[in-house]
Structure formats: structure tokens, C-alpha cells
């Protein structure tokens, strides 16, 4: 009896958001799902009849020269690069973001909004400008290399730009607030007395961090990791500008299919594949990180 009224309240409160999402996200997804089963149009777009060619090409390749069918290793390497770059980005933003969020949350209550704004202000300049600003810093004749050379630490500039490192640096920069803000929201609510209890029990800061703090701010960590990892997987601008465009990530690859490649069914099938993979990973992640008897969904 209680359960039913709870469900009704839950659905009612979520309804406005769901309505907007239905048009702005779920609807497009259905369109894409449909497209992945159609035949590619001659100059972009799709047409009838239904076809599995798009899906076939996601995983397999028919060699254009000898017609043999094999596993599509190009696509695998693109997927693999995207996954490890996004995982590393998530890890680095967490390692940098946790101390930052902690630092902000332990400032006097008054100045906390100020610190929060300080984190977001760089992001009020838009992504493209920011990315080009990072480019200026890591260029061969940019700030980092110039300073290092002046200091005599290196004799020739280090080639950072146009490598996977540049993509990693750029993505860490771009996605950092997505880690810091949720972590902050979780830490800020935190009962400090628990810390003292923790010190009384363990008396070691690292153990307190591991046994008390991390479990308590788990929802923030989950939110932060989701907000960094998933958008990083679909990143488009950073690998294109900082990575130099020679090594595509999934986002660039899907864009290619909707652009110059003119293969919308393949692009759609790739997008759906990505979605399924992300959802699967997310479910596993949530299951693994949810304490037994917990109620997170």
C-alpha cells in the first residue's frame, strides 16, 4: 500500500524531466536505433530497405581488396584507445579532484561558494577557446617547454602536443569540474565527528581516508566517475585539436560516419554499441560498488 503511493510520487516528480528527455534524448535514440537497421543513402542519410550491413561492419570487415571477412581490428583499436584514455582521465581527475574538493569543503563556510566559483570560472570560456589555450601551453614553443628549457632541465622541447598525452592532459582539464563538484557536494554534508571517531579507532590518516572518508562520500565518487568517464568516451573536440587528429576516438569515428564517410547506418550502429557497452559497464560498476543491503539504483 505504501509502496504504490511511493511509486506514484516518484513518477510524478520525475515526469517533467522525463518529458523533456523523451523529446531531447530518448526520441533521438530511437531514431538512431532505427537508422542502424537501414541502408545507407548515397550522399548521407538512410533509405529503405532494412539491412544489417551497418551492424555487420561494426565488428567485421570485408576486405575491400580480397573480399575476405575478418574481425575489424581498426574499430577495436579505436574502441580500446577511447576506453583506456577515458579510464585514465577518470583516475587522474579523481586523484586530483578529491584533494581539491576536500580543500574547498574545509574552507570556512562563507568562502566556499567563492572557491567553487574559482573551479568553474575557467569553464565559462567555452570548450574550443579553452582547448586552444591548453594547446598554447603545451606547444613545442609554448609555456611549459620554454620554462623547462630556460631552467636547463631539457635541451630540446618535449613533443607533447599531438600525442595521446596531449589528449589526456586536455581531457583531464576539461572534465575536472565534473569530478570536483559532485565530490564537493558529498563531502560538504559529511559529519566531521565521524572523522574523529575514525582517528580514535585507526589513528592513521590513510586508513581513515580509506575506511571512513571514501565509503561515506561514495555517492559523490560514483556521480563524479560517471560524469567524467562517459562524456570522455564520446569526446570529440579534445582528441581532434590536441591529439592532432591522427588517432581517432570513438566520438571522432562516429562523426566521420555521419560526415565525410556518409555511412549513417554504421555511425548509428556504433553509437548503439557504445551505449550498450556503457550501460553494461555502469550496471556492473554500480553493483560492485553498492554495499550489501544498500538501496542505490
Amino acid at each position, binding site marked *: 500500500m505504501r509502496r504504490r503511493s511511493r*511509486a506514484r510520487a*516518484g*513518477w510524478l*516528480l*520525475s515526469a*517533467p524531466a*522525463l518529458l*523533456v*528527455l523523451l*523529446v*531531447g*534524448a530518448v526520441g*533521438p*535514440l530511437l531514431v*538512431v536505433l532505427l537508422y542502424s537497421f537501414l541502408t545507407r543513402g548515397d550522399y548521407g542519410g538512410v533509405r529503405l530497405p532494412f539491412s544489417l550491413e551497418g551492424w555487420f561492419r561494426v565488428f567485421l570487415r570485408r576486405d575491400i581488396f580480397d573480399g575476405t571477412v575478418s574481425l575489424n581490428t581498426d574499430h577495436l583499436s579505436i574502441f580500446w584507445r577511447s576506453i583506456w584514455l577515458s579510464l585514465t582521465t577518470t583516475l587522474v581527475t579523481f*586523484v586530483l*579532484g578529491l*584533494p*581539491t574538493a*576536500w580543500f574547498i569543503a*574545509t574552507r*570556512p563556510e562563507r568562502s566556499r561558494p567563492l572557491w567553487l566559483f574559482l*573551479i*568553474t*570560472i*575557467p*569553464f*565559462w*570560456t*567555452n570548450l*574550443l577557446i579553452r582547448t586552444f*589555450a591548453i594547446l*598554447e*601551453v603545451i606547444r613545442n614553443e609554448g*609555456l611549459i617547454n620554454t620554462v623547462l628549457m630556460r631552467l636547463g632541465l631539457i635541451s630540446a622541447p618535449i613533443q607533447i602536443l599531438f600525442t595521446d598525452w596531449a589528449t589526456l592532459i586536455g581531457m583531464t*582539464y576539461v572534465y575536472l*569540474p*565534473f569530478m570536483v*563538484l559532485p565530490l564537493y*557536494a*558529498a563531502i*560538504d*554534508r*559529511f559529519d*566531521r565527528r565521524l572523522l574523529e571517531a575514525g582517528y580514535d579507532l585507526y589513528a592513521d590518516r590513510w586508513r581513515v581516508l580509506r575506511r571512513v572518508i571514501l565509503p561515506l562520500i561514495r*555517492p559523490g565518487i560514483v*556521480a563524479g566517475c*560517471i*560524469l567524467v568517464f*562517459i562524456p570522455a568516451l*564520446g569526446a570529440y573536440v579534445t582528441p581532434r585539436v590536441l591529439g592532432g587528429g591522427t588517432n581517432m576516438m570513438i*566520438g571522432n569515428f*562516429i562523426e566521420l560516419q*555521419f560526415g565525410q564517410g556518409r555511412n*549513417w547506418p554504421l*555511425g548509428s550502429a556504433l*553509437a548503439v554499441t557504445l551505449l550498450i557497452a*556503457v550501460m553494461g559497464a555502469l550496471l556492473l560498476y554500480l553493483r560492485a560498488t553498492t554495499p550489501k543491503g544498500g*538501496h542505490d*539504483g
Partner: protein
Amino acid sequence: MAETPPPPPVRRRTFSATTLPGFAAVAVTVFVALYLPIATLVVFSFNAANSMSDWGGFSLRWYEAAWANRAVQEAAGRSLLIATIASLASTVLATLAALGTTRQGPFRGRMAIWGAINTPLMVPEIVTGVALLILFGTVRAWTGYQGLGYLVLAHTAFCIPFAYLPIRARLERMDRLLELAAADLYASPRRAFLRITLPLLMPGVLAGAMLAFVISLDDVIITEFVKSAGQDTLPTYMLGQFRRTLTPEVNAIATALLGLTLVLLTAFFLITRRRG
């Protein structure tokens, strides 16, 4: 560090429970690293040379160029307008949804709602962009309406998960005792919400709203596909320049926007401080 309760007697005098080794150092490094590119950007907006990397002396020429550039000003205004509406709308919707999915306890379909809310995160922008282009193209042809509504709707949709996740992270660990206490004291649910729940929720709401604002302001690809005639935003305007070389004019625009932000923020802090 200053506001921590008095240390237990056994420990060193300087001990503070909230201090963790190296955390402050990392945080300071992060702030420096965040502002390094921004500082370069600001410096080169005053470059006399037509370059974002070679310094040619001090000049305001790029500010003059930006001042004379009607297209860029309109694009910047449009970006801010869309970001403001979309972040407000998505934060309200996300707060309601977060209350609906956490305060009620488990119920049938909660997982489905959660999945739907996070959909925009999982679909690459280009895909949403192309699909929305097709959907909205049909609607445009039917209704004849070509205003900013499509962009606002699209932005609101993809901002929702960004607002939702921090708010929910906050709600999940929130003490319900206060609300129950309020209910015991005969506060109406509405009053209990406004006076107890919402203020406690505020840091999450603020974090969510800021993320949503930034996300909307940043969006290139969905906007590029959804916009119709005369609806360039700052990011799509710059995307158009991708094939050519960016000049310090974009630095000047970015710096001017940053300056405006800082003025508004300072004003905001001064006003709230005086009131408090």
C-alpha cells in the same frame, strides 16, 4: 581548518581532523594548473601581433575588432541566454526528479527513470545532433516555428543529468531526521520542504546548476545540428573558424566574458555579504 572542533587532549596541539597530508598542496597545484591556460589566453588577447603564440607588443586591436564584430556579439549573447534558461530549467527538473527517485525509497521503475535521465550522457553528441536535426526538421516544416525553442529544449535535455547527479549525491546522504522533526512540529510538507530540505539541498543544487550552465555554454555539436538560420552560438561560431586560423579576437571575446563574469560575481558576493 580553522573551524574544526577542539582536538582531543591526547594528540598534538596542531592536529586537525580535516587535514589530510598533501591534500592542500594538490589542491593549490590544481588551481594553478587551471588558471595557467586562462592566463595565457588573457595575455595574448592584448597581443599586437596576429598570433596566439608570438608576442608582438601590447595592443587593444583585438578588443576593437571584437567590439566591431556584430556576429560575435550576437552569438555570445545568444549563448548566455540559452545557457541561463537551460540551466535554470534543467536544475528545477533535475531537483524534482532527484527528490522523486531518492526520497521515496525503492519503487518499481526507479531504475528505468534513472536510465532515462542519464541517456544524454551515454549517447555521443553527434548522434543526438543528427537525430534531433531530423526530428526538429520535420517539426519545423509542419509548424513553421523556427525560434530558439529547439535549442533551449535540446540544451535543457542534455543538461538534466549534469544537474541531477550532484543533487542526488547530496540527497542520498542527507539526514531525514530534521524533516521528520519538522513534520512532528506540525509544519506542512511544503513548509518543511522549503525551510528544511531545500536549504540542506542547496550545495547540491548550486553545484548542479553550475555544471548545467557550463555544459550548455560549451556545447558545440548538438547546437551545430539543431540551430537554424541566424542562431549561431559562440561555440558554433568558433567551430566555423576551425578551418581557418583563430586570431586573438577570440581571446579578446573570452577575456571580456570572463571580466563580465568576475564583475557580476563580485557584485553578488558584496550584496550577499552585506545582507548577512
